[in-house]
């Protein structure tokens, strides 16, 4: 029995099919598993390994390199506060301190109701509207302690559920088809184009030589 649902398994196979080598799908499949389970489970890693043709240890080793891939469950909302330079200059550490107190958890921890995991992160590239916060990687900007508390309340009451999908869902837009161009066709087209280019070059050189 595989770990992916039949629907996700089909998506996984489609994803693999768009790469020249299956292993390239490893990270996209980790995201897919996170969208299914909220985190990257051991069982999912085993199945991903099988699908892309590497060992489970290689999936685990690769996933552990990347901050967004969580091999332990996280809260429903992953609340990330940026404290990098622009946000720091705008009071991000004060905001982080406030968040720690008001949520009662430190960076890396989850509230006891399982709703919120707090984390301190590096620049998320929204520095003109610092301090910046993201929730499941959806951005909330110009955040101060008051708007932060309001945001937490709203997240818990489900007010943002349309903009902020559950943790792990990266893109709600899917690729609509596999590869459109068969590999042999591309190869043929490129060979023909290279030949045509060489001919143009030879012709231009011959014309240049004539002029001389």
């Amino acid at each position: 029995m595989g770990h992916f649902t039949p629907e996700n398994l089909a998506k996984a196979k489609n994803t693999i099919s768009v790469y020249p080598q299956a292993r390239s799908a490893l990270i996209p499949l980790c995201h897919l598993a996170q969208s299914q389970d909220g985190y990257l489970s051991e069982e999912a890693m085993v199945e991903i390994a099988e699908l892309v043709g590497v060992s489970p240890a290689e999936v685990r080793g690769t996933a552990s390199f990347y901050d967004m891939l969580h091999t332990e469950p996280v809260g429903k909302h992953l609340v990330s506060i940026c404290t990098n330079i622009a946000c720091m200059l705008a009071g991000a550490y004060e905001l982080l301190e406030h968040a720690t107190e008001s949520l009662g958890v430190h960076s890396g921890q989850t509230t006891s109701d399982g709703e919120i995991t707090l984390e301190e992160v590096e620049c998320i590239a929204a520095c003109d509207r610092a301090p910046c916060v993201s929730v499941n990687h959806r951005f909330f900007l110009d955040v101060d302690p008051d708007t932060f508390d309001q945001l937490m309340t709203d997240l818990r009451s489900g007010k943002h559920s349309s903009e902020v999908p559950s943790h792990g869902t990266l893109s709600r837009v899917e690729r609509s088809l596999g590869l459109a161009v068969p590999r042999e066709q591309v190869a043929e087209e490129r060979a023909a184009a290279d030949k045509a280019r060489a001919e143009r070059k030879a012709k231009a050189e011959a014309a240049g030589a004539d002029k001389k």
Partner: protein
Amino acid sequence: MTVTQAPKIVTSRMGYDDSHTLERYLATGGYEALKKALSMNPEAVHDEVTASNLLGRGGAGFEAGRKWSMLRPNPVRYLVVNGDESEPATFKDRELIERDPHQLVEGVLIAAYSLQVTQAFIYIRGEFALGIERVTQAVNEAYSHGACGNNIFGSGFSVDLVVHPGAGAYICGEETALIESLEGKRGFPRIKPPFFPAAIGLYGEPTIVNNVETMSNLPWIVLNGGEAFAALGEGRSTGTRIFALSGHVNQPGTYEVEMAKPTFRDIIFDPSLGGGVRLGRDVKAFIPGGVSAPWFGPEHLDLRLDQDEVGKAGSMLGSGSIVVMDSATCPVRAAWRIARFFKRESCGQCTPCREGSGWVDKTMRRIEEGAGREEDLDLLLDICDNIAPGLTWPPAQTTICVLGPSIPSSVVWAIRMFRDEFLVHIKDGACPYA
């Protein structure tokens, strides 16, 4: 003041709320450039890019046309677009990705045609969830519009475009790490030589890696000609460029301005741009091109936004991000925060970078928290000298990639510029700004 009325080349649609839609894109001349390119020879398109002298916008500023001519001839070749934007305080690619995804896609297709690649990939930083959705949507629409896939616009040219998400690792912005990541591995940079992507890239095949903003310039260049682009700016710094302005300015944001014309003072103080420093304070220091760049002081405000001029003055335009620190900023804390970033993001392959970044972080933190010793300043300079011997700019490189040699940029320059403030921290046993 030399804030010129240059055309907006990559941000022309930013005024529209629906700038990301195919409808808006088509209504504003979208995909005309691709059609024009397809009517030319691939090498003629390349010639226009060379004539434009478009410098790569990812940080290193290498001429795009020249890079393209280095692509090793081979039946299989790839184009990879770098949308990993994670250099702290850099936020211009995210805007292009989210707000004008079709312009990016069109640029990629033009490059794919000119380079006659087998397949193209757009690697987007994983944290850009909205950006990934927008570009995926744009790619889907490009396929159904006939701009991508089989026999594009009936031209006989076919290519597939794949959007690839990252998963959170700054180092994957480095082009060879990005390729490793795209191959489904940890983002460990490869050693150059031999692993120059144009020779040995994705799956070992020749690969061109270009930045999102670099690609987004191509539709305009094809429509208006490389010469029109080169007529803007000055010397090697042609065209316009997006500068991302953050920190203590009244109007932080992204501003597309003509290259080499405005100065740092213009971009920080002009009412149509940064609008001056908050609370009317003075500029204490500013970072001219991302946190990998050495800091500048007020005496550098009149340098022009010109790649070579800034390089000669001892720093770089890098990723085009300017961070302004006002007179109330603690330079120790600011430099420490940058050091901590490098410590967290070092991939750990090279000893000077892995160990050095940890030591710098620890020592800087100690000073900032008031527990530093006077010898710590020499210790910091010594560690940094081990990472990038000589502490010059550009830095000497003893590591696989240039993340390592970027570590001293903030720390060493902060010590050089603000030594007395470091000493106050040490003497008073506390941060005077806390």
